């Protein structure tokens, strides 16, 4: 029988090709039209990622597959892809001040940003182990370079070094775990097939391979998602890297990593056999522990931070903990798949928006915004609009009703209680209460202290403003009308 040539599914492939082509185009355009200035690269990257976003939203139907079933736009993957692309656009929009201030090479910066987003996009939709590993590494390699892109800063080099060492280390865990999952499942690496072949498992040897693989892969994911106790690099990297890069690391790479984690855990959710149920119970308690530790340690250590970027790093560790609660519920399996995925997506949208605003204001303020919290004193008098945006982000991160941060937390806590994880929810609520202290401290400094010194604030450029507003407006609008999220996520 002659081999059949697989037909190419063009629409599902198009967003991936678009983003990859955008990155290459930025580098080429820089060679040809170098004198166009940094805005030119920014423009191409926004257009490319925006076009890919539109294609995913309108041209790709749910459950469309491509690349021989290695890539599939299931509900959570398709939405994850859209969130990641939107996040890439927002990060590009808040970048110009940093690029200008620290004299980053614009074409390299935006091209690497787009390549990182490319990796995240593929990571969100890949349902095959080795594709997941490859896209994780694409994201990681792009961000190693981005973190160290401030050529005159030795802090930036140190951030790159730390992220590189721990990123490569966790990559090793991830791939070794994946290889054993592949081995335990009898030589299939597509996640759907793994789920089916696990059902027929009877030998101790295969179960052993699976458990070892799952444990190592989870450790790898925990590194990527900065979960306690795998979080130690996060604060240093966030502090040393350029602020928009820290934003991308905190938002896009966490969204993509979490979606991939959900894909890997999907066979466990379905509880198809007794072995799977037993494994799911153990994985569930492991995730429970990681979530609880992240919430407690993230919030408590954030209290001690004076540097704004370090504070935001520990806050994002705590938020990973809240998010992982949804994964605990997911693995436990009593709540329906679609409902857990909905909760996760709402939280991811909320998280991306508020982090982009918080980091975006810091980036717009330049050296002052990236320093200590004391530097924010009197900001409300000097730059009322930026102070107001920062206040919205802080209130939303705390989870004050009327902001999208509250909606995200509310859904997750409600589902967790429904599934019977009351203790975890109590911990999370206490964590949120503690977090109010360090978030509201920023507001207190901005609004109730007099400015120290006479630092003049350069007004935000048009592009920065657009980026900040695009992220800030939905925080309030979707916070006041959460039913819009339900409509959005069920219809499009």
């Amino acid at each position: 029988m002659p081999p059949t040539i697989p037909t190419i599914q063009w629409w599902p492939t198009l967003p991936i090709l678009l983003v990859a082509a955008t990155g290459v185009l930025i580098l080429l355009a820089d060679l040809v039209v170098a004198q166009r200035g940094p805005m030119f690269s920014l423009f191409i990257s926004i257009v490319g990622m925006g076009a890919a976003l539109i294609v995913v939203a309108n041209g790709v139907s749910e459950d469309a597959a491509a690349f021989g079933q290695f890539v599939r736009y299931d509900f959570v993957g398709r939405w994850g892809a859209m969130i990641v692309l939107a996040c890439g656009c927002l990060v590009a929009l808040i970048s110009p001040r940093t690029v200008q201030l620290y004299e980053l090479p614009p074409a390299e910066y935006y091209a690497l940003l787009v390549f990182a987003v490319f990796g995240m996009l593929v990571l969100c939709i890949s349902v095959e182990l080795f594709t997941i590993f490859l896209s994780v590494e694409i994201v990681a390699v792009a961000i190693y370079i981005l973190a160290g892109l401030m050529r005159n800063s030795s802090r930036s080099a140190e951030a790159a070094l730390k992220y590189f060492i721990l990123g490569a280390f966790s990559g090793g865990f991830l791939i070794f775990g994946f290889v054993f999952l592949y081995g335990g499942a009898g030589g299939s690496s597509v996640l759907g097939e793994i789920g089916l072949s696990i059902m027929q498992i009877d030998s101790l040897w295969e179960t052993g391979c699976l458990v070892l693989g799952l444990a190592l892969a989870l450790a790898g994911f925990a590194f990527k998602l900065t979960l306690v106790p795998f979080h130690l690099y996060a604060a240093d990297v966030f502090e040393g890297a350029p602020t928009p890069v820290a934003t991308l690391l905190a938002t896009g790479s966490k969204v993509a990593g979490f979606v991939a984690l959900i894909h890997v855990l999907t066979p466990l959710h379905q509880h198809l056999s007794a072995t799977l149920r037993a494994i799911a119970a153990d994985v569930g308690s492991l995730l429970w522990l990681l979530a609880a530790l992240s919430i407690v340690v993230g919030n408590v250590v954030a209290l001690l931070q004076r540097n704004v970027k370090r504070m935001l790093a520990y806050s994002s560790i705590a938020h990973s903990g809240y998010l992982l609660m949804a994964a605990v519920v997911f693995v436990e399996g009593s709540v329906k798949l679609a409902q857990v995925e909905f909760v996760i997506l709402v939280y991811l949208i909320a998280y991306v928006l508020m982090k982009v605003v918080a980091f975006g204001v810091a980036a717009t303020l330049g050296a002052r915004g990236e320093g200590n919290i004391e530097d924010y004193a009197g900001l409300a008098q000097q730059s009322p609009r930026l102070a107001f945006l920062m206040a919205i982000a802080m209130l939303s991160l705390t989870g004050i009703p009327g902001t999208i941060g509250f909606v995200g937390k509310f859904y997750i806590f409600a589902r967790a209680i429904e599934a019977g994880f009351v203790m975890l929810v109590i911990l999370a609520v206490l964590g949120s209460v503690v977090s109010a202290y360090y978030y509201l401290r920023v507001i207190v400094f901005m609004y109730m202290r007099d400015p120290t010194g006479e630092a003049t604030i350069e007004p935000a450029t048009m592009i920065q403003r657009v980026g900040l507003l695009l992220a800030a407006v939905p925080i309030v609008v979707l916070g006041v009308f959460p039913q819009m999220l339900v409509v959005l996520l069920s219809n499009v």
Partner: protein
Amino acid sequence: MGEAYFGYNIFLSVILFALGVLGVLWQRNALSVFMSVELMLNAANLALITFAQQFGDAAGGGLVLLIITVAAAEAGVGLAIFIRLYRQRATIELDKATELQG
């Protein structure tokens, strides 16, 4: 290699991986740490090719090439980062990389 070596190869890959992890945790020089990471990746390669042979999955060999490519890309970027750090601080001992500390 036949069936007989299957178990040995998997065992060897686990040992190599454990050595790599210990190397990352014990070594203080960035280059040695990176070499230990490479050992972890190659342990994964060995396990992967052994499994692929056992299950008669021809794609496994291709996937090994993928992991080797990733390791090469990481080496390219990582060595550049080490060189930059060395130029600025004249050392790549990880213990000395302590400028970022709260």
